[in-house]
C-alpha cells in the first residue's frame, strides 16, 4: 500500500500483496479508526469515526495531563500536556506503564489501587517521576470507564508545584509573623513586670498603710495584664488565650499575695476551657482581678477563714458567665457597684460594660456572689477536649451550684 520504489523480486511482491489484502480486509471488517493517505501536503489522517472529536480537542488542548490507563497500569492514551509535564516524548509514554512513572515507594499501593479501580477516586496528592528523575508534585483524580467489558481509568493529573511553593511561602511567612508576635508579647510582659517591680519598691517605702495598699493594688492590676502577655508568649497560638489556664494562674497569684501561707481562704475553681482573644482576655483578667482582690481584702478581712468559688462557664454558645462567690462578711446594706466608693468595684462595673456584659450581685448567707454575663464571639470559642483536660479536684461545680441555690433562697 505504499508507493515507494517498485519491488524487484517476486517474494517481496507477494509479501506486499498479502499486506494490502490484509489491510483491505481490516477496513471492510470495520476494524479501522482512521485512514492515512499521502497527498501533496504530506500524510493526512482521515478519521472514520469521529463522534469524539469535540472531547478529543478539549483533552488535547487543556493544560492538565489527561491519561487513560488499563487495570495493569498500561497507558492507553495520554495527551500532550501529560508528556510535557514529564519532559518525555508522547510516543514513549503511550503503551508504557504508569507505575514506571511513579516514585518507587508509592508503586505497590498504586498498583493495587489501579487494579481495583480506586486510584484517584477522591483526588489525592502524589508525585510523578519526570525525565531525569525529578519528582513533580501532582494532584490525581480519576473516573472509571467501563467499555467493552474491561474497565479503564480516565485520569486527570494537575501539577501543583506552584501551589506547593506558594503554600510553603505562606507557612514560612506565618511562622515569621508568629515569632515576631511572640517576641512582642515577651517584651510587653517584661516591661509590665518592670512596672510591677517599681510599684512594689514604692509600696515598701510608702509612708502609711493606705498608700502601701493602693500601690500594691496597682501592682496587682498591671500583673494581671502582664500574665496575659506571658501566657500568649508561651502558648502555641499567639493570638488567643486558654482561659482555664489564665484564670487558675490568676487566682493562685492573687491568693498568694493577699492571704497568708497557708492561706486562710480555700479556693474552688470550675472553669470551662475556651479561648479568648487578647483584648477580651485583658478586660476579663482585670475584672477578675478586681473581684478577687475585693473578696480577699474585704470578705475575708482580719484573716477570717472561708471559701471562694470561681466559676467561668459557657451556658450557651456565644455567652460566657463568670461568677465569684464567697462566704465572707457580705456586702454593706444598699450596695451599688456603680456608686461604690471603692475604685475596684467601680472598675468591675466599667469592665463588665466594656465586655458588653451585665454585672449582678446578690447577698449570700453568709457572703456575696458576683456574676458577670458577657457575649463572646462564637468563632473564637473552641472548647477543648474538656473531659481529657479536666483534672479531678480542679473544679468544684457542686459547691458553686449549691452556693448559688443558697444565694437564690437567701436573696
Amino acid at each position, binding site marked *: *500500500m*505504499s*508507493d*515507494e520504489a517498485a519491488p524487484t523480486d517476486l517474494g*517481496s511482491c507477494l*509479501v506486499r500483496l*498479502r*499486506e494490502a489484502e*490484509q*489491510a483491505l*480486509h*481490516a*477496513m471492510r*471488517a470495520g*476494524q*479501522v*479508526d*482512521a*485512514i*492515512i*493517505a*499521502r497527498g501533496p501536503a504530506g*500524510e*493526512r*489522517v482521515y*478519521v*472514520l*469515526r469521529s463522534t*469524539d472529536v469535540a472531547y*478529543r480537542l478539549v*483533552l*488535547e488542548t487543556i493544560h492538565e495531563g489527561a491519561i*487513560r490507563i*488499563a487495570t495493569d497500569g*498500561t497507558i*492507553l*492514551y495520554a*495527551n*500532550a500536556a501529560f508528556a510535557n509535564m514529564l519532559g518525555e*516524548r*508522547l*510516543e*514513549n509514554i*503511550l*503503551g508504557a506503564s504508569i507505575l514506571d512513572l511513579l516514585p518507587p515507594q508509592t508503586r505497590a499501593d498504586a498498583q493495587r489501587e489501579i487494579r481495583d479501580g480506586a486510584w484517584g477516586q477522591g483526588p489525592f496528592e502524589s508525585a510523578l517521576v519526570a525525565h531525569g528523575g525529578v519528582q513533580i508534585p501532582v494532584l490525581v483524580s480519576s473516573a472509571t470507564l467501563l*467499555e*467493552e467489558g474491561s474497565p*479503564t481509568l480516565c485520569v486527570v493529573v494537575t501539577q501543583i508545584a506552584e501551589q506547593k511553593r506558594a503554600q510553603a511561602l505562606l507557612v514560612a511567612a506565618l511562622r515569621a509573623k508568629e515569632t515576631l508576635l511572640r517576641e512582642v508579647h515577651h517584651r510587653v510582659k517584661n516591661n509590665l513586670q518592670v512596672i510591677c517591680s517599681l510599684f512594689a519598691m514604692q509600696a515598701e517605702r510608702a509612708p502609711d498603710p493606705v498608700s502601701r495598699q493602693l500601690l500594691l493594688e496597682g501592682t496587682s492590676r498591671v500583673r494581671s495584664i502582664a500574665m496575659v502577655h506571658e501566657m500568649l508568649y508561651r502558648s502555641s497560638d499567639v493570638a488567643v488565650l486558654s482561659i482555664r489556664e489564665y484564670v487558675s494562674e490568676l487566682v493562685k497569684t492573687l491568693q498568694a499575695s493577699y492571704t497568708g501561707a497557708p492561706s486562710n481562704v480555700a479556693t474552688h475553681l470550675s472553669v470551662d476551657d475556651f479561648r479568648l482573644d487578647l483584648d477580651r482576655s485583658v478586660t476579663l483578667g482585670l475584672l477578675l482581678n478586681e473581684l478577687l482582690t475585693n473578696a480577699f481584702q474585704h470578705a475575708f478581712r482580719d484573716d477570717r477563714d472561708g471559701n471562694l468559688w470561681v466559676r467561668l462557664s459557657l451556658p450557651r454558645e456565644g455567652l460566657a458567665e463568670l461568677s465569684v462567690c464567697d462566704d465572707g462578711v457580705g456586702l454593706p446594706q444598699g450596695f451599688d457597684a456603680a456608686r461604690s466608693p471603692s475604685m475596684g468595684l467601680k472598675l468591675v462595673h466599667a469592665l463588665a460594660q466594656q465586655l458588653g456584659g451585665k454585672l449582678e450581685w446578690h447577698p449570700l448567707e453568709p457572703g456575696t456572689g458576683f456574676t458577670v454575663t458577657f457575649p463572646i464571639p462564637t468563632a473564637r470559642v473552641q472548647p477543648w477536649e474538656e473531659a481529657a483536660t479536666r483534672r479531678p479536684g480542679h473544679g468544684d461545680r457542686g459547691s458553686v451550684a449549691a452556693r448559688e441555690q443558697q444565694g437564690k433562697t437567701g436573696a
Partner: protein
Amino acid sequence: MSPPPDKVALTLYVAGMGPRSARAILEARRLLDRWLDDRYALRVVDVHQQPDLVGATIPGAPALVREGPGRPSTYVGDLADDEEVVRAFRLREEAEP
C-alpha cells in the same frame, strides 16, 4: 531515539482514545510479551496527536509496524487474530532462532 540493535523495533499506530486504540495497545503488549519477552522495543503513536510521526507505510490505524531488523511489515486492524499476526511479523522465527 533509536531502539537497541538486538531488539525487534515496532511501532503501533492508534487513532485517539477510543476502545479500539486501547485494545490495540493491550493486545500488542500481550502478543509481544508472549513471543518476544523483553526482546522488543515498542513505541505507540497517536496519529491524531502526532500526525508528523506517521510513516508512509500504513494505510490506516490501528496498525502495527515491524520496523526492523529485516524487511518491514505491517498489520492493520484488530490484533486479536494471533496466528495472522504471528505470521505477519515472523514472531515464531524470532522466538525460536
